[in-house]
């Protein structure tokens, strides 16, 4: 394992430290416990938005702290959800008097730690609601799984809920908007090569040069099945079709198409995937109203990509278009 790090035990601290220095105009870093808040927060009279999760998915979540998106991000250890004793003070720190929304990716660890944090915050008199993002169609949402995972669709939830909060919606309103995004966003990913978690030192799984892993998560977890390597267009179909099917796209929809890199895939390849994914959506009769191509929800240096589709309604579209100013997303 070769990584530009000093010590696996310090990588999250040092990285967040660097992030805070590089974006001092946007954020402040709180230490012990570690979390990142808007430099201009807490914004009085605005619902606060807190998200967080294991590190290693950068720019998620700290890269999305700023006007029109998150008020705080709580980074856990690499691929390990943060603890309640960090989430709760972050929640308190961004409370502007109108309550705080927790945006939680659906993993057992994240859900449990945010739950506990919400209880702690509640005890401190901060009203907290939580929404759980579960956009990954690779996992069946059934009795036999922990439910669909939260993956790249999280960006859409954070952006749009952030815009709703920014325009002044109350906590229930922001939560409702977030839930609507969650209900309308689906993703599916592929890995060509695994990543290596610093403390583990070996790749999270092994793939030969002839195979890829379909339905991959963002924590170096192996996916649902392994298939022979195939041309990009075929792989793109394997990602896009289940997403379109699960959304029940029938034609006439306006959608966001997000082609997300897992961290180790060249941008040029993401645009190759985007091209075919868009073609498939248009062949279904959907209109790609907005696009995002790049590394937004990564899995360290994993090679691979995911396709996320969000079905817009007029309000979601205009909230997507609302101004945002964060380190990783700005318009």
């Amino acid at each position, binding site marked *: 394992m070769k990584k530009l790090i000093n010590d696996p035990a310090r990588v999250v601290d040092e990285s967040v430290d660097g992030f805070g220095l590089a974006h001092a105009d946007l954020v402040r870093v709180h230490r012990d*416990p570690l979390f990142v808040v808007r430099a201009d927060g807490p914004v009085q009279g605005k619902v606060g938005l807190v998200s967080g999760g*294991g590190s290693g998915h950068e720019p998620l979540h700290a890269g999305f702290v700023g006007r029109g998106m998150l008020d705080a991000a709580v980074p*856990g*250890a*690499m*691929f*390990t*959800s*943060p*603890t*309640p*004793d*960090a989430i709760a003070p972050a929640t308190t720190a961004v409370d502007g008097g109108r309550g705080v929304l927790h945006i939680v990716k659906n*993993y*057992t*660890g994240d859900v*449990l*730690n945010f*739950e*506990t944090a919400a209880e702690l915050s509640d005890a401190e008199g901060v009203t907290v609601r939580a929404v759980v993002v579960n956009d990954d169609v*690779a*996992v069946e949402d059934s*009795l*036999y*799984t*922990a439910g669909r*995972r939260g993956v790249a669709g999280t960006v859409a939830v954070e952006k749009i809920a952030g815009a709703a909060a920014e325009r002044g919606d109350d906590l229930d309103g922001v939560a409702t908007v977030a839930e609507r995004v969650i209900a309308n966003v689906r993703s599916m990913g592929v890995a060509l090569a695994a990543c290596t*978690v610093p*403390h*583990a030192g*070996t790749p*999270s*799984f092994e793939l030969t040069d002839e195979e890829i892993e379909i339905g991959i*998560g963002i*924590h*170096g*977890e*192996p996916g*649902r099945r392994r298939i022979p390597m195939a041309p990009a267009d075929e792989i793109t179909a394997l990602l896009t079709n289940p997403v379109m099917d699960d959304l029940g796209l029938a034609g006439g929809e306006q959608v966001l198409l997000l082609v997300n890199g897992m961290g180790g895939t060249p941008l040029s390849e993401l645009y190759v995937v985007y091209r075919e994914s868009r073609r498939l959506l248009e062949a279904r009769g959907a209109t790609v109203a907005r696009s995002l191509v790049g590394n937004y929800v990564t899995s360290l240096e994993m090679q691979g990509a995911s396709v996320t589709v969000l079905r817009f309604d007029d309000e979601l579209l205009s909230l997507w278009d609302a101004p945002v100013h964060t380190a990783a997303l700005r318009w």
Partner: protein
Amino acid sequence: MTLDVAWVDRWVRRTAAVVAEHRVELIELDRQIGDGDHGENLHRGFTAVVGRLDELTEPPAQIGDVLKLVATTLMSTVGGAAGPLYGTAYLRAAKVTGLPELDAPAVVAMIEAGLEGIVARGKATTGEKTMVDAWSPAAAAAQTAAAGGATALEVLEAAANAAEAGAVATDPMVATKGRASYLGERSAGHRDPGAASSALVLRAAVTAATDPVVPAAP
């Protein structure tokens, strides 16, 4: 030896040592069917626990005080699924150990409380390939042993044995809770890391009762 506050101190320190020793193995198990952090998470947690124990200006008066310190430290340093689950287990266990010394029924109560904490948070039942598959047989074996007139130490031993067997029994299971459930059928053929670490924790309780040596900090 008696299962008193000195014992619980040794238990916790031994757990930290054992987790440090098995860190890579637990990471490896989690890498197979999860995200490869379980060993790291517990190692970070128990190292912090030992640190806090060492910082105490006066020794804890009660067994429950130590277990509560473990609970809150794990909750605030482990993260992931294991943090809240173990945290709640120790918290519930702390509540039922308000005695200077544990007898056989108290050991049963402690293990049952731990199991209940895990189930309350994680909502898993046996057969879902989680730490419940170690704690549930452990609690049952403890109860049976106590009912048969076993000593507190024998009860502990029965629980540790059952937890180890329970961990092994997770090998063929298909996970339906936690991260391994994403793999579906592919999760079979691997041991659940949380069940494996649970067996280590309970075995450490036995060793702490039979071996007076206080392990050095990991």
